[in-house]
């Protein structure tokens, strides 16, 4: 999806619902999952520092697009985990993963002319799984649904 708001709201909804069962899921940890939902879009760094500029400096092929895959996201999460105190690393790693996976899955459902999604599991496999094509990246519906779902879980979870 094009906007980070939808991705952040999806992660928020997942973590708020999980907090009904897991008492340790405080708002601080919900924030971690929301930050995790931004992780795959680190690939947008290409707008500031184009992939081909980096590639021209390296002896190997290079594409920031790899950050928007399972492998690239795993590495980004490990960097995030290293930034927090040792006692928090397991929970933070888990919640960054929840957010990031929700982002990759939501994008894997995007409509494509080929009927195929992107190589979401790279570098394990270059397979492009079929996509149900539920929405276009520019459809407003996913955002509307995410906002409504977030308001409902916020209302249910509040005091």
């Amino acid at each position, binding site marked *: 999806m*094009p*906007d*980070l*708001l939808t*991705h*952040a709201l999806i992660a928020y909804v997942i973590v708020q619902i999980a*907090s009904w069962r897991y*008492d340790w899921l*405080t*708002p*601080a*940890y*919900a*924030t971690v999952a*929301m*930050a995790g939902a*931004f992780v795959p879009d680190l690939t947008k760094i290409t707008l500031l520092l*184009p*992939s*081909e500029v980096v*590639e021209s400096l390296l002896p190997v092929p290079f*594409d920031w697009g790899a950050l928007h895959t399972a492998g690239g996201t795993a590495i980004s999460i490990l960097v995030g985990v290293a*930034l*927090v*105190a*040792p006692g*928090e690393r397991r929970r933070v790693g888990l919640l960054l993963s929840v957010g990031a996976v929700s982002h990759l899955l939501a994008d894997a459902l995007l*409509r*494509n*002319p*080929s*009927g*195929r999604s992107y190589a979401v599991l790279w570098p394990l496999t270059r397979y492009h799984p079929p996509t149900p094509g539920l929405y*276009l*990246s*520019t459809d407003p519906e996913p*955002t509307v649904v995410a906002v409504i779902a977030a308001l409902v879980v916020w209302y249910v*979870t*509040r*005091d």
Partner: protein
Amino acid sequence: VEYHRYLGERVSVGGQIVDTAPITIVAETTTGHHVRLTITDLSTPVTRHRELLVYGIAKPGHTVRAIRGFTVAPSASVYAVTVSFFAGIWVLARIVRHWRIDPTDWTLVPRSESTFEPRLGEGRDTDRRRE
């Protein structure tokens, strides 16, 4: 651009529509080059400046015969950029509110409830859950 390597193959291409007769898009290659492609056999109507995504066959002369295709608003639209910017601010504010830098080893730690001023009822919420 090594367009000829894809001749006769099925390709997925996309880019901004710069002409509609014939339909022409400017696509960016994986190596960062820009290439003008003519799209034929497309059944959906197109308008300039929208982005066209096409799945089709690569033909000689930088022409792609469309199997399926549709247009979308430019992904870097003002709306998407604005909404994403505010989402970033929102999550950043949450991080600052819920986490702090521990100066002894420069790592992030959750703000403990004793030093954390409850706002919007979230502090009380936490206390309730801890009971």
